[in-house]
């Protein structure tokens, strides 16, 4: 079995191609940085790997380290370099580095369908001649050129033809040749090429140097002299000289192989979408539209219908159970526990389906990356990494993968801070709680929904500023976030994401919500002496009343709300099922008021996340003490924010 490695710049369509070749449905995002680990699959009996998107093989980021280590150590039989055909010159920079690795190379010009639109013509034959690697043109998103690619893969695997190494200026080449001629280079680890090693010695690549034995003094002196002479000649450091040389080669090849027609530029949506002042209001307006469509329009019709359906189902179960003399305990568990609890959560499925669908469309069309771009500037001033935006965007779906994705952030403090602030972004599980409160207390006021996102962002900003003020060793790092082009969302990708999120939600209703509903029902029906009692004298009420006074200043100092918060630790959707079992969603108005409902929403939004997210936080923070601080900060911040929100509402109304 032979091994193929898919490699290329971020967002050039590697994962889409990987899915086409392997028949899998790995997540594809229209933004860079989706793949942070290698993925494996099979195509035509060959093993194929999808490596993270990288711009170079310099070992700066974890993605670059992973890709470089894989290619050098695992020696794939064929490197498939996926090139964004509309960005040929930039892509060829990586191609030049891949050519130096001494493995057969196949260039795949992806997005050929966009070339005409962009006024670009590429001479594939010329490109192949100049790089010494076969070239195939495809469109992974449209699925064209895949057969030709598969045929070329087989041909390249049998021919095992090596690409041409890019040649630098004579002044640099002289030193490379002399270094290659030295005996020291025979000690390079297996699989490394002499020329590649010589370049790494000029660059003083630490990762490479650490894999080599100490050089003889004469050779060491020669390398130092070479570096100094290069510095003097080019007036730059050797690493930058090599980068410049590679770009020159890429520029030369691109100039020779492509013709770019100047296209007239009309109105660009990005002039608003990424505008310093207009971007955030536009984002809030778009989110308001998303919430209006999902929670307002769809939810407005479907939620009452489904509520009636589940209420009817519960009544019928009671009627039938009474007729056949079923124990009240059993019929109660089934009707008032399972049907009421699970049903309360399931009533939100249609509106969440629409919400997930719209969020997937926003992400797939490239809009979410614009938000990332806007936030990137802010993130760095807050002491967070520019990369922190990736977890924050993913966090709109679920905090668990979002927290996990923070591991691509190099600096420990920035990574830890990102882990702590990610749960502030409202996840899909919190949506039913917000939808419930908005439906009952703020009908028609859909502008409140995007304010939840804004509040989450404010919490991130405040925490970031505070952490930065306390941090004596401020870390900064550059993060290149490339804006993907706007595209029509792929129906397959959008459907896959929406279906997966919705099914995940339904599955949670059938598992953890079901279990917690039964437990809540039992605890709310029995006293500590196991006597059937009214809810007010139940075990649950006793437990709830112990902690309820803490929340009295926030306006929800009654045991039902406190207990719902506790069950929310298992899963945030449990809050809805618990309120449904203990109060009944139709009776929320008897205990909550509009100010306490807003304060309750704020507390749920910002307080410590569910147990799955807490365990992900523990994994990433790696310390119980840090986790405790994080949870205390989140909960304390949530308490103060909820109090502030309530005071503002009380003072303004």
């Amino acid at each position: 079995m032979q091994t193929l490695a898919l490699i290329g710049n971020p967002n050039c369509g590697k994962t889409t191609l990987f899915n086409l070749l392997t028949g899998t449905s790995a997540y594809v995002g229209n933004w860079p940085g989706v793949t942070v680990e290698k993925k494996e699959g099979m195509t035509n009996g060959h093993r194929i790997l999808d490596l993270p998107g990288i711009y170079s093989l310099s070992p700066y980021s974890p993605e670059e380290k992973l890709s470089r280590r894989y290619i050098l150590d695992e020696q794939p039989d064929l490197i498939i370099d996926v090139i964004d055909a509309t960005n040929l010159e930039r892509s060829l920079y990586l191609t030049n580095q891949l050519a130096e690795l001494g493995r057969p190379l196949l260039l795949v010009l992806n997005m050929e369908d966009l070339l005409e639109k962009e006024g670009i013509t590429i001479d594939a034959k010329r490109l192949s001649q100049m790089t010494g690697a076969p070239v195939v043109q495809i469109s992974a998103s449209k699925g064209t050129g895949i057969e030709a690619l598969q045929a070329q893969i087989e041909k390249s695997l049998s021919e095992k033809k090596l690409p041409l190494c890019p040649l630098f200026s004579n002044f640099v080449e002289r030193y490379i040749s002399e270094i290659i001629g030295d005996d020291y280079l025979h000690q390079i680890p297996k699989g490394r090429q002499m020329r590649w090693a010589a370049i790494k010695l000029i660059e003083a690549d630490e990762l490479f140097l650490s894999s080599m034995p100490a050089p003889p003094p004469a050779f060491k002196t020669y390398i130092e002299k070479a570096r100094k002479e290069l510095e003097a000649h080019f007036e730059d450091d050797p690493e930058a000289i090599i980068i410049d040389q590679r770009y020159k080669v890429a520029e030369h090849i691109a100039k020779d192989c492509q013709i770019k027609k100047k296209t007239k530029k009309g109105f660009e949506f990005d002039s608003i979408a990424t505008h310093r002042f207009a971007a955030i209001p536009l984002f809030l307006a778009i989110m308001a539209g998303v919430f209006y469509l999902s929670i307002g329009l769809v939810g407005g019709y479907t939620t009452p219908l489904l509520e009636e359906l589940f209420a009817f189902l519960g009544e019928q179960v009671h009627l039938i159970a009474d007729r056949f003399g079923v124990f009240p305990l059993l019929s109660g568990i089934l009707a008032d526990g399972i049907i009421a609890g699970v049903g309360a959560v399931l009533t939100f499925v249609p509106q969440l389906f629409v919400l997930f669908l719209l969020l997937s469309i926003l992400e797939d069309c490239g809009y979410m990356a614009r938000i990332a771009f806007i936030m990137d500037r802010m993130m760095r001033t807050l002491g967070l990494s520019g990369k922190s935006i990736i977890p924050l965007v993913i966090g709109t779906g679920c905090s668990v993968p979002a927290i996990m994705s923070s591991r691509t952030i190099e600096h420990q403090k920035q990574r830890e801070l990102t882990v702590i602030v990610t749960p502030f972004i409202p996840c899909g599980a919190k949506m039913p709680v917000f939808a419930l409160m908005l439906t009952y207390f703020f009908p028609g006021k859909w502008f409140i929904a995007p304010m939840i996102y804004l509040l989450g962002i404010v919490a991130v900003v405040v925490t970031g500023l505070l952490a930065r003020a306390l941090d004596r060793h401020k870390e900064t790092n550059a993060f290149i976030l490339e804006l993907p082009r706007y595209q029509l969302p792929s129906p397959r990708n959008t459907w896959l994401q929406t279906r997966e999120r919705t099914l995940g939600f339904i599955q949670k209703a059938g598992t953890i919500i079901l279990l917690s509903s039964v437990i809540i029902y039992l605890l709310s029906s029995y006293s500590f002496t196991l006597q059937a009692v009214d809810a007010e004298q139940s075990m649950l009420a006793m437990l709830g009343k112990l902690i309820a006074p803490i929340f009295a200043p926030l306006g929800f100092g009654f045991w039902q709300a406190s207990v719902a918060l506790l069950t929310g630790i298992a899963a945030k959707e449990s809050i809805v099922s618990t309120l449904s079992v203990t109060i009944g969603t139709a009776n929320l108005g008897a205990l909550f008021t509009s100010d306490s409902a807003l304060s309750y929403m704020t507390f749920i939004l910002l307080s410590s996340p569910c147990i799955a997210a807490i365990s992900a936080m523990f994994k990433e923070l790696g310390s119980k003490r840090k986790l405790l601080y994080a949870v205390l900060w989140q909960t304390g911040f949530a308490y103060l924010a909820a109090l502030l929100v309530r005071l503002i509402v009380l003072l303004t109304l």
Partner: protein
Amino acid sequence: MLITILANITVATIILTLLAFAISVMIKQGKEESCASCSTKKRSACKGCQFADKCH
């Protein structure tokens, strides 16, 4: 009397089956170390699977 016993057994069985199913799925998810947000099917499109070490 028999009908009452059968009705009680039926309701109890329904409840126990639902609970057993819920627990088994949660145990399965726990063993797979999935992100608790996605289904347990392979080839999941959930984003968590891109980041979790052993998720699917």
